């Protein structure tokens, strides 16, 4: 039928279809929400109560990050002072019914009442140790797991990027961290003294500087009480410093930057052994040994003398090569036994092998070798191995080589590392002096087998060789074997503490799911409220009811309109 107002009809149907579509979407949304809410309500959801003035009893682990970086001064106030204030405020809010633990940078969880823990907080000073935040949180959670009360973690920290490590967070976590950016900082991250001992003529140390500042600061390096050397250093720089000679002995090397906002990382101490070069006697017919010794002699690394003999078993310090003729093996073994050496040569092994690389030697081909057999229990004094079997051993004042220094036995004499190997063998290994090593406070350091005690100043710890040693403080530790000093440890702060850059909240939240953040001023008020949760089933069911009513209304309206 003819109808002029068809355009109104078209508009009507189009508008109506649009409305119907909108209603359909709304219905779909409401029904989806309904199902989701019913499922959520069935799961028994809870929500933290954030604004409780008083709070229900809770178990709270407070981690106060007083690691080295907390000593940084920002806007005239040290970070640690701010942290201490926040920690005290948290403890002030605690009641006698709460269970409390405090962890400092030493990683030890200390339980106690608020008053006792406040004393600990007040006495906390910047430590030289690094606090691994992920590890600390995991430890805190272990304690909370055993508690019947709702648990909560509060971490008061500068949130250094280098300290944030992965952890699975199972309890509410409140992170109280400063909101302003840390100041730029430079720190001494290492002193590399190179091969030791240094000769009496001195040596060269390389000082590494780390930091997140573009500044350059004057660097002063001292060897004992000798006149200092100075250079300008910036972040990432490795500054070589020539240090003049001193008399024989163990000498501290101290590198110091001019003061910045974090003072504690401006000084680092190393240690060097200074001794006269080894006086060596060698057989000039041994082609490769003689060539290496002559090079070392020309460079002042050894001199001719009878302190160390390389070749057959001789009085004094001896580096013994196996004989060319197997018939002489018995005589050598008897001489070794007569010297009281606990090792001897065994059978000839012609199976090709490769040395296991270590600090002394890289991977070298070995064509022939004698097995080195110990005549005592245990296996001490192994210096190098081939396929796990001893290849170079030291016993008393004798060093036994498993192969002759000859290309027919091993590729070592024709390798680039041969002369440095001979330097270390004659100057250090044959003389019984060990590598000077380093470490960080409270971290285990593996000690050489021969070490019987560790000494720092007047303090001395009896240790078992091969066992890990955990130095408690920074400084120089000497390793003793009986009455002899056979090495030293330079214990310094972890260089990662010099990098003050803060981790972004978002990346931390990705790593520690559910973490919430607050400033030191407002954060303490949020403590003791995260772990206490309110039951959300009631509101969820009310929402279900309301949505149900909305669904009925919309569905009937839709039915009517369609």
């Amino acid at each position, binding site marked *: *039928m*003819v*109808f*002029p*107002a*068809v*355009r*109104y*009809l*078209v*508009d*009507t*149907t189009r*508008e*109506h279809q649009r409305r119907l579509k909108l209603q359909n979407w709304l219905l779909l949304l409401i029904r989806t929400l309904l199902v989701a809410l019913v499922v959520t309500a069935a799961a028994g959801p809870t929500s933290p109560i954030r604004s409780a003035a008083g709070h229900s009893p809770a178990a709270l682990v407070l981690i106060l990050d007083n690691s080295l970086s907390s000593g940084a001064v920002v806007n005239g106030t040290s970070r640690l002072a701010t942290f201490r204030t926040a920690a005290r405020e948290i403890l002030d809010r605690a009641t006698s019914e709460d269970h409390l633990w405090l962890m400092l940078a030493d990683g030890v969880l200390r339980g106690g009442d608020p008053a006792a823990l406040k004393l600990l907080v007040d006495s906390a000073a910047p430590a030289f140790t690094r606090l691994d935040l992920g590890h600390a949180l995991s430890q805190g959670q272990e304690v909370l797991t055993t508690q019947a009360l709702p648990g909560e973690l509060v971490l008061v920290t500068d949130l250094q990027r280098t300290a944030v490590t992965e952890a699975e967070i199972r309890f509410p976590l409140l992170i109280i961290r400063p909101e302003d950016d840390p100041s730029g900082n430079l720190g001494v991250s290492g002193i590399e003294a190179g091969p030791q001992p240094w000769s009496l003529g001195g040596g060269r140390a390389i000082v590494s500087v780390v930091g997140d500042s573009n500044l350059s600061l004057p660097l002063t390096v001292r060897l004992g009480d000798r006149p200092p050397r100075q250079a300008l250093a910036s972040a990432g720089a490795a500054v070589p410093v020539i240090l003049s000679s001193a008399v024989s002995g163990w000498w501290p090397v101290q590198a110091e930057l001019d003061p910045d906002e974090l003072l504690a990382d401006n000084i680092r101490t190393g240690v060097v052994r200074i001794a006269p070069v080894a006086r060596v006697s060698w057989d000039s017919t041994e082609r490769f040994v003689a060539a290496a010794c002559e090079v070392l002699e020309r460079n002042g690394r050894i001199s001719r003398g009878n302190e160390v003999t390389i070749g057959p078993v001789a009085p004094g310090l001896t580096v013994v090569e196996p004989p060319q003729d197997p018939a002489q093996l018995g005589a050598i073994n008897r001489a070794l036994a007569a010297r009281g050496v606990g090792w001897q040569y065994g059978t000839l092994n012609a199976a090709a092998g490769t040395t296991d690389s270590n600090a002394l030697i890289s991977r070298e081909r070995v064509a022939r070798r004698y097995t080195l057999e110990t005549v005592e229990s245990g296996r001490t004094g192994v210096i190098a191995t081939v396929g796990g079997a001893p290849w170079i051993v030291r016993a008393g004042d004798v060093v036994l080589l498993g192969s002759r220094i000859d290309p027919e036995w091993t590729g070592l004499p024709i390798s680039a590392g041969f002369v440095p190997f001979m330097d270390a063998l004659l100057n250090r290994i044959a003389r019984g002096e060990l590598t000077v090593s380093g470490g960080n406070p409270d971290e285990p350091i593996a000690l050489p087998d021969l070490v019987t005690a560790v000494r720092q100043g007047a303090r001395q710890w009896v240790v078992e060789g091969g066992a890990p040693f955990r130095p408690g403080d920074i400084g120089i530790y000497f390793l003793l074997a009986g009455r002899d000093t056979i090495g030293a440890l330079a214990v310094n702060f972890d260089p990662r503490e010099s990098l003050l850059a803060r981790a972004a909240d978002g990346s931390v939240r990705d790593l520690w799911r559910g973490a919430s953040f607050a400033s030191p001023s407002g954060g303490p008020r949020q403590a003791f409220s995260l772990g206490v949760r309110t039951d959300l089933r009631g509101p969820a069911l009310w929402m279900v009811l309301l949505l149900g009513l909305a669904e009925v209304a919309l569905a009937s309206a839709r039915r009517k*309109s369609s």
Partner: protein
Amino acid sequence: MNPSVSSLGPARIDLLDPFEVSRLGGLELVSEGVVEGFLAGLHRSPRRGFSVEFAEHRMYQPGDELRYVDWKILGRNDRLYVKQFEEETNLRAMIVSDISRSMAWTGAPDTRLTKLEYAQRLIAALALVLLRQRDATGLITFDDEVRSVTPARARLSHWRTLLRVLAALSPGKGTAAEPALRRVMDRLRRRGLVVFVSDLLLERETALRALQFLRHRGHQVIVFHLMDPGEVNLEGPAEARFEDPETRAAITLRPKDWADVYRDTVAGVVTEWYKACRKRGINYHRITTDTPFGVALRQALARPAGLA
């Protein structure tokens, strides 16, 4: 006065059902009857132009009619002043009528006039009222283009001319109001009155733009939105195919199912027209074809803003 109309006695022909009135006689007779009834029902002149109310004096100018000279002032002051009355100048009115194919439709051929037939009678009556006021009145008709242009004249005899044009009207094709309104602008150089009669089944924005332009030129604009009651309330068989007589667009649906929302849509369209016109200072009147002519005339003429 035609005897047949006079014989209607005291009955107000302007208030009778338009279809019944149209059966009484031709266009002329019906229009006169409507106007007589309409004017008789007024207590006073609908326009100030009818009045002879004194407004002010001004100095006599050569050419002024002597009958307006104020002799009393001449006697007192020996100066020639003439009286001025309100509405001395006649209005120029142009009626613009849509005669597109959609206007030739009625939802009830046996009981209702088509929109075009209704428009013819309404325009005739309106023109008679205006001409009796000595207002120059013209007529422009359009569908998809301007079909006829009758210039505005103030003589009463001009009404016969308009009647002839109206009687000869036949439904056109599509609807395009803008050219017709532009022609009005050309014709009405002085500020005047434009009466736009249409079912408004046209491009709203285009028409509004043209009407607004008329307003900017200072014209008073009245829009008569003619609708058949069958366009207001959707009726029909159980299922029907509705076809636009102009565009041939068609839609098939069940009128009963859509009647409510259709009524809402129409109400929305009327509201939009009303708001759009009001915003532009245009008088808008929706008139269904079962509305007595007198009521429609009153809507237009009783408002001061209408013809003032």
